């Protein structure tokens, strides 16, 4: 029971993680929390759904409910979702930056983008949930702990991407530039870093990871227009718990929030899930006012 709860928590945490990493990157580099992050997740899921409809869902590999077409669709959706984010930046956020818009204007603009994306999805794909596959997947049983192959894949892909992101941030020029810009944009400029270029890559990576979250969520649960919006509060909870300024903090925060959700679903009423996220936020901030890995303001 205890272990099952942890496993469910880790699965829930993987979707939050993939979303909050982008939220954290945008927050630290563009200096505002984007309320559209949830809807980027949904958009990514729907793009993959559209691609699968085009290329078919043929086959299944290693007992999963999906085959190569979905993997191809996932990669394409990650790229296309990045393109969508770039287009939105060009059309909206870059204009606001040029006018030195306040943080609150940027947040409000992101609210607008969120509503636009969500309702475009409803216009084109309707309210009803969609599934990548209707195949019923039997759960694997590890001594009483049950997990489906799809869930295992979601956790594995998330882990791999988090490790990859860590290597990217600590080993590559672009990753180091991003860390430099997130701490001190004007000093980054003085060192020859093109801040605008860093911003564009931030959108691409953030939206790319969001698309992966959307596809995995679609594979494990379902695709529906509010799938990303429903992740927005847990993502913000994870960001706050983690300390706002650290991507690693955000990942830890996601794990904590995911586990809290796992416990709630197991022991309490599932509807209390999001309330529990915020109880965790309050408790963590009482002990560490700047979050797990946050710096003193």
């Amino acid at each position, binding site marked *: 029971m205890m272990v099952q709860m942890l496993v469910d928590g880790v699965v829930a945490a993987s979707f939050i993680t993939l979303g909050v990493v982008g939220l954290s990157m945008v927050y630290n580099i563009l200096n505002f929390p984007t309320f559209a992050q949830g809807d980027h997740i949904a958009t990514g899921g729907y793009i993959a759904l559209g691609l699968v409809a085009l290329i078919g869902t043929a086959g299944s590999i290693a007992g999963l409910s999906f085959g190569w077409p979905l993997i191809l669709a996932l990669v394409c959706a990650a790229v296309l979702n990045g393109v969508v984010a770039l287009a939105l930046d060009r059309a909206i956020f870059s204009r606001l930056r040029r006018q030195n818009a306040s943080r609150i204007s940027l947040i409000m603009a992101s609210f607008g983008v969120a509503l636009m994306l969500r309702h475009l999805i409803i216009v084109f794909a309707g309210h009803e949930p969609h599934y990548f596959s209707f195949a019923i997947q039997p759960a694997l049983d590890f001594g009483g702990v049950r997990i489906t192959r799809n869930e295992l894949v979601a956790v594995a892909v998330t882990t791999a991407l988090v490790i990859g992101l860590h290597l990217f941030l600590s080993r590559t020029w672009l990753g180091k530039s991003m860390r430099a810009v997130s*701490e001190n944009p004007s000093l980054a*400029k*003085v060192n*020859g870093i093109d801040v605008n270029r860093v911003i564009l890559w931030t959108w691409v990576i953030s939206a790319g990871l969001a698309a992966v979250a959307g596809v995995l969520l679609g594979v494990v649960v379902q695709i529906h227009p509010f799938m990303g919006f429903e992740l927005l509060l847990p993502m913000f909870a994870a960001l706050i718990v983690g300390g706002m300024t650290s991507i690693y903090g955000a990942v830890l925060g996601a794990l904590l929030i995911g586990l809290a959700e796992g416990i709630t679903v197991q022991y309490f009423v599932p509807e209390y899930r999001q309330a529990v996220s915020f109880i965790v936020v309050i408790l963590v901030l009482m002990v560490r006012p700047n979050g797990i890995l946050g710096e003193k303001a």
Partner: protein
Amino acid sequence: MTAALHLEVTDLVAGYAPDVPILRGMSLSVHTGEIVTVLGPNGAGKSTLIKAIAGLVPTSSGAIRVRGNNIMGLATHRLVTAGVAYVPQVDNIFTRLSVQENLEIGGMAAPIELRQRIAEIYALFPDLARLRQLAAGKLSGGQRQMVAVARALMARPHLIMLDEPSAGLSPKLTEMVFQKLLDVRALGVTVLVVEQNAKAALAISDRGYVLAEGQQRFTGTASDLLCSPEVGELYLGTRTKLAS
């Protein structure tokens, strides 16, 4: 001074708001291989001058030439490729990055031979070599200033501009930082310093300018400025020390 004109600022007007200029027709010249200090009271426009050269403060008229090329209006991130390094007064290192990563960021404009350059810089700043893996935010004030100067030198600049390198440092550390600037000059780098600490800065400088209300008030060799009672009394606030 027969050396070539390295940095030439002519009638520069600059400020954050176009109708409220902070610099009001500032002129200054630095020759290759010189150390030149810009002095002046708080609010005189010293930092604005250096930031305007770095492209961080809007300029409205005048000219800024580096080795004869006009760099006015150049995007800040292109300054490094023009061979100009800038060490801001505050927030001049990336505190969350390690010492080594700070140097790597500094060398981004010239990533070929990066390892060799890092080795050269550690030879110049031996104390930093053993701190290389440490987050720069954990360093002391003097060490931070060394990281800031080391980072700026990574891109092999021919001109380095420093904004109040003595800010927040003890007299002993201040002297150490200024002694380091002599080493930097010995590498063939021209140095422009903006300072409040007139005595320490002029001690290593060839020439100096005194700035007040956005314009140049006095200029001369470092020893002239140090000995001038007028300069001391009016702008350096060190009358008793200098006049005695």
